[in-house]
């Protein structure tokens, strides 16, 4: 499945729109295979932890843009500030990732994965209908 356009990054909504993505506990799935519509389930935890990590990625994009601009303008303070933003963003992303296995039980993943990639012996192929 497409990670961005389907399974994860286009599959979240908010319990309270006023809070938005600011709090992990406000995130909900739109679609699920198993028990994912229950936000405390392992399926929801697995997907929504990815959303929670990626929500910080604006800091990485802004940090990269600021860094290029500062370097281009030989702006030493701006360069340091951009590196600080990249570092602090990576720290919050890392912290969010560390919560993965409290939001989602590893043993439940064996069940969830059934619908994500199937398995190595899988022989399903997409082919044109004979008609």
């Amino acid at each position, binding site marked *: 499945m*497409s990670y961005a*356009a389907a399974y994860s990054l286009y599959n979240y909504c908010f319990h309270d729109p006023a809070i938005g993505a600011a709090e992990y506990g406000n995130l909900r799935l739109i*679609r699920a295979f198993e028990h994912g519509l229950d936000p405390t389930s392992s399926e929801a935890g697995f997907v929504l932890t990815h959303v929670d990590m*990626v929500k910080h990625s604006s*800091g990485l*994009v802004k940090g990269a843009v600021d860094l290029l601009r500062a370097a281009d303008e030989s702006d030493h303070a701006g360069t340091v500030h951009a590196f600080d933003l990249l570092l602090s963003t990576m720290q919050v992303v890392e912290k969010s990732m560390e919560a993965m296995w409290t939001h989602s039980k590893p043993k439940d993943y064996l*069940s969830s994965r059934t619908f994500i990639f199937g398995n190595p012996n899988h*022989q399903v192929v997409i082919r044109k209908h004979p008609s």
Partner: protein
Amino acid sequence: MSPYLSSPTSTNGDGQTSTRHDPFKQLENDPAVLPSSLDPFTITTSTGFLPLHPPSTKLPTAFHALADIVDYMPIAKVDGTPGLLATYALGPTIDNGALPNLTMELDKLVTGDGLPDLSEVTAIFRDYAFLASAYLLEPCWERWNKGLEGYGLGREMLPACIAGPLVKSANL
């Protein structure tokens, strides 16, 4: 100015305004004012790699048959009661014609400027992607859930009512 940053007056070496697609054109724009005809995964400094706008949760009216099936599909529905996958009933539901082929309906999803509404199209792609995986892999889930060894094999054929709009929405 760094060549990696967009400039509102970017020109090529001949002094002509470049018509080359600029992937960074919207980089520092406010997503709130960007049209839904843009790829929702256009990168900005305020949304990063998340979509420009929160994903659509309600599909357009023409896709209600799809929305109904994916609402009823999960092993546990939103109210906690068993859905189609809980009783391995998704495949028979599709095979019995519950889902019309809505491929042509995708052409009607345009924004005010006549361009494809990629925000809506992506929500529809998401739902067909979930449905395609669930349809193909439902037999594997049944085998796993019954405690048999391994996942077994999935269905061999994806019907046109899923494959058609899945491919079309992916290409848009």
